[in-house]
């Protein structure tokens, strides 16, 4: 099946700022795709281009088989959108806004609407003026989830939701996925992405840095190991692929590149392991490794955006 979203070489600039700078993004039909990146990386700009609100300067953008700029109206029958900051008309009630957006889209599912209101514990009769940030976000979510749209574009949809509501949201997205519908989920909540997404794309400074399943990403990175050893751990430092070795008495911890994991474990065995903790990198570690390292060096290097990809490839 053709991908739901296919973006290649996308460019968009505002004045002198390059918001999107050669971005590639593919969202397969039926998958939940995580869209990650630090603030200002170009996530929202990309989504607004996908909505046909902004026009791409260059690159190819195909959404549900159409051109989001030219075919906006037709494509919007088939998608639902939740912005990161839901602004509502202050004198309309939440229920009115949900009905309005559903009717404008043309597929308001009454039963699901009422069901969602209950699950999200949202009072539809309150005027939008009096909703908190989290409740405004719920209005946007209910309006989008009450539709049968085949593609959901969600731009940090759960900012401001409490953990209980976060769980409700995750249930809803799983239901959407089980119906074979597609979700593009931009998020900063890594646990959410880890729990929901089949694949994810990480972008930075308007470019794609990594894309794939979480497992694939873990493979090309490092595993963290903490061990309590019977003998001296000095010889570990000579091993290929070992990073950040710290030794405290008999206790040792280090990261090792995935391709050298086998060798490292064998060496540990030779040294006599009393206890061993070994875990693949969490998404958070992946994320921080991509940004934390690079961002810290940014001021002195001030390299063009492309440099990160090169480093990723050579690591």
């Amino acid at each position: 099946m053709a991908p739901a979203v296919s973006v290649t070489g996308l460019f968009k600039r505002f004045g002198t700022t390059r918001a999107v700078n050669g971005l590639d993004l593919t969202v397969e039909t039926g998958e939940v795709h995580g869209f990650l990146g630090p603030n200002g990386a170009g996530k929202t700009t990309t989504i607004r281009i996908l909505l046909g609100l902004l026009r791409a300067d260059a690159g190819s953008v195909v959404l549900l088989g159409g051109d989001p700029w030219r075919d906006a109206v037709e494509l919007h029958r088939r998608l639902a959108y939740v912005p990161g900051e839901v602004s509502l008309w202050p004198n309309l009630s939440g229920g009115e806004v949900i009905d309005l957006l559903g009717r404008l889209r043309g597929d308001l599912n009454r039963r699901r609407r009422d069901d969602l209101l209950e699950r999200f514990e949202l009072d539809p009769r309150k005027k939008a003026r009096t909703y908190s940030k989290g409740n405004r976000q719920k209005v946007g979510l209910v309006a989008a989830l009450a539709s049968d749209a085949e593609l959901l574009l969600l731009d940090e949809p759960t900012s401001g939701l409490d953990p209980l509501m976060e769980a409700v949201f995750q249930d809803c997205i799983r239901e959407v996925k089980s119906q074979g519908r597609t979700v593009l989920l931009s998020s900063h909540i890594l646990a959410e992405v880890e729990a929901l997404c089949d694949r994810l794309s990480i972008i930075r400074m308007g470019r794609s840095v990594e894309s794939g399943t979480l497992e694939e990403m873990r493979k090309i990175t490092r595993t963290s190991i903490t061990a309590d050893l019977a003998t001296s751990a000095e010889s570990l430092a000579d091993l290929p692929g070992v990073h950040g070795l710290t030794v405290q008495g008999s206790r040792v911890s280090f990261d090792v590149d995935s391709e050298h994991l086998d060798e490292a474990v064998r060496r540990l065995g030779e040294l006599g392991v009393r206890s061993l903790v070994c875990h693949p990198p969490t998404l958070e570690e992946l994320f921080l490794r991509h940004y934390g390292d690079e961002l810290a060096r940014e001021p002195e290097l001030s390299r063009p955006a492309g440099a990160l990809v090169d480093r990723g490839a050579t690591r």
Partner: protein
Amino acid sequence: MTDLEGTGALVRLILRRDRIRIFIWVAGIVLLVALTATSVRSLFPTQAAIDQAAAATQHNAGAIAFNGPAQGLDTLGGQVAFQVGALGMVIVALMSLFMIGRLTRGDEEAGRLELIRSLPVGIHTPAFAAVLTVTGMDIVVGGLASLALVALGLPAAGSLVLGASYTAVGLVFTGLALVAAQVTESTRVVYGSTGALLGVAYIMRVVGDVGDGTLSWFTPIGLAQKARPYAGETWLPLLPLLAAAVTFVLAAVALARRRDHGRGLIAPRRGRAHATPSLGRPVGLALRLQRGTLIGWGIGIAVAGIAYGWIAPTIGSFVANNKALADVMASGGGATLIDSYFATSFRVMALVATGFAIQSALRLRSEEAATRAEPVLATPISRWRWATSHLSVAVAGSVALLAIAGLATGVTYAAAGGPWSSVPRLLGAAVVYAPAMWLMIGIALAVFGFAPRWADTAWGVLAACLVVGLLGPVLRLPDWVQLLSPFERVPQLPAAHLAVTPLLVMVALAAAFALAGLGGLRRRDFG
């Protein structure tokens, strides 16, 4: 004084963020006064010319209705005060209420004040800083206007009183807007309710000045004019205005203590759980969003029409009793005085109602800027359909307001002794302004389509039309400049014959501007 901790810093913040806005208001008003004074002087170069003008206006109820009581008209200063007195007070009042609404409830509604209030600043500091700033603006406007008038050679005492009356009226509306900002949660309602009070104040003055004068004592504008600039000044009437301003501010302080941050005194009602069927199409949404605004304008225009209709018979009787005036009128094109009066009334009401037309058209911009249009445009609603939904409210609302103006004037006139046959005549005389209002909507839409950040310049176009329409002859603007305003091209019914060509040209221009704007909107980045 911990309640007012941090006032200095907040005043500096206001001066920094609004420095351009403040400059435009103050400089614009002072310039308007100075230009009017210059023009009046060149219009009446000799005492004989002034006397002649005085004789013509002394008993002209129409002119008195628009400008105020006839006092000191046989002096240059008196003529200046007559031309720009009431008008200047209305503009200073608008400046004060818009500034206060924006700086208090506007910031509170936008959530900006919350951050400020989390700092070590007092509960009343933001409001106090706003009042200090706007009071300063009122005083500077009054002071600079006085200085300008003195510099132009007018008597110092009268110039000072005229400037002080601007300040006093401004302060009253500063206080009123501050009270309104405590009562309601919505900035729009602050502007609307205080603006409506300004309308009532003006109309009470009209009825008072044309009648026995009693009512004028109970309205800020009428009272300020009792200070009689250039006509035996007396400062006494300005004192109750100052007292009223202080009372309003103190009342606002008391009210502010009774409410929570972000809330008003009137709790918002609960809304519907489900939308009504009309709220399922873009037009339904546009109508719902603009309903309150349109009703507010409708009431205001109706009250104005009733007032103008009510005093109309008085104007007819002036002519009957004043042969000299009747001769002047007859020589001026054959129209009767009453018809000229109606024509002027409708022009003024149409110019004022264009405020709604522009506000309504620019709703597109405010919806875009607040990102509220985004979820609508993410549904299968094209930009074209979204824009035309608000546009149709603006276009139809303009006609509705003109019809209200015509009917209110005509029916009241007939009820007060005029012929009933004049009702359809006056209705037509009002609605004939629709193409001019549409043209203004078209201009607003064109700016919105191509340069959304500059959409507010449409207000500048209206301000220019107002200056031309109300002061054009006094300012002695060249004909071609006056004819740039579409309102000057509209046939002055019922005093003139219906000329269709200018109306058709305006409709065509309006359509062209609107189409261009819609085209620009479809091509540009949104948001």
